[in-house]
């Protein structure tokens, strides 16, 4: 049974058994439920003497949360992607490779795109993420948001795949003699970007083991 179902069934049973709302919230708080979860589950039932308890209609998944975290993780994805592309182009420029036949104008255009996306999406991600961190500190129940957990784990998954792929490709390059300075620099960029994201979100998703 999911925690949300558990608490809903418990509140229903307690109300049907004639327990007062104060008693129920005290019992739930002792069990470690967050204040917003307690008030949410109590508010799911109308405060009346009618028995059995009368349910209130409620939204199934928070659309607002889906918008907020969707935007946040899209911004993170764009930032990570374009940070890597921009760094790759800079490395290509500083460590020229004669076998590289890509036109210079193409690299310049790509860099302009990356700079533009970083200027838009990096501050957006930082603002949304700061807000998420602050809200979680005020109300720990927020970190149990299913939407947030899912986006967090998907990010973690992509970061892990990038890190493993990076390592795999480095070994392949070593074996085929392509382990140039240019390649090493690019691998380091991928490792740093994916590494920061990985450690950040592994910490974030590990905070609450009891959720979902």
């Amino acid at each position, binding site marked *: 049974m999911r925690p949300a179902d558990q608490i809903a069934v418990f509140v229903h049973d307690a109300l049907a058994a004639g327990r007062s709302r104060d008693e129920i919230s005290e019992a739930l708080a002792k069990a470690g439920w967050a204040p917003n979860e307690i008030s949410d589950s109590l508010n799911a039932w109308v405060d009346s003497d009618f028995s059995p308890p009368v349910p209130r209609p409620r939204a199934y998944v928070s659309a607002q949360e889906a918008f907020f975290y969707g935007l946040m993780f899209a911004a993170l994805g764009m930032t990570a992607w374009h940070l890597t592309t921009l760094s790759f182009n*800079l490395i290509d420029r500083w460590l020229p490779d004669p076998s590289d036949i890509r036109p*210079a104008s193409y690299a310049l255009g790509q860099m302009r795109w990356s700079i533009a996306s970083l200027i838009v999406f990096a501050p957006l991600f930082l603002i949304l993420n700061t807000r998420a*961190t602050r809200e979680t500190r005020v109300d720990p129940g927020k970190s149990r948001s299913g939407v947030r957990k899912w986006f967090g784990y998907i990010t973690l998954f992509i970061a892990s795949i990038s890190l493993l792929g990076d390592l795999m490709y480095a070994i392949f390059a070593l074996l085929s003699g392509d382990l140039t300075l240019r390649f090493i620099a690019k691998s380091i960029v991928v490792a740093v970007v994916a590494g920061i994201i990985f450690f950040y979100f592994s910490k974030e998703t590990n905070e609450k083991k009891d959720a979902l």
Partner: protein
Amino acid sequence: MRSEYLPQILIALIVVVAVIVGLVVVGGPTAGRMEKRDEARITDLRELASFVECVADSNQNTLPEELGQIESCSRDVRLSDPFTDVPYRYEPISPTAFRVCAELERPGAATQTSWHNWEFEPSTGCLTASYLR
């Protein structure tokens, strides 16, 4: 400073450094406009080279001494730089080769390229063509 903000500060720092370095390398809007003008000039040089070939074709396969509009090749071709009004340089190198040159503003951003019998060299701003008939 709270430790939970550390990754965010790290990301912000890396992004700011990358954007600044990137801007230094690609240059601002002025550099972008220079590149656009250079692209137009390079396109003109290509048009000009095929124009010269057309003129030579209509003159018993001999390359012209200098450039000028002629009746038989009445295509729309610019003989001078549209931005500075300086005429493009035309130099016959040999009976079977010539070059057309423009003054580029940002040669570093242009690419050395070659089409069939043409070769463009950004550092000199010259398109060298071999004329074989």
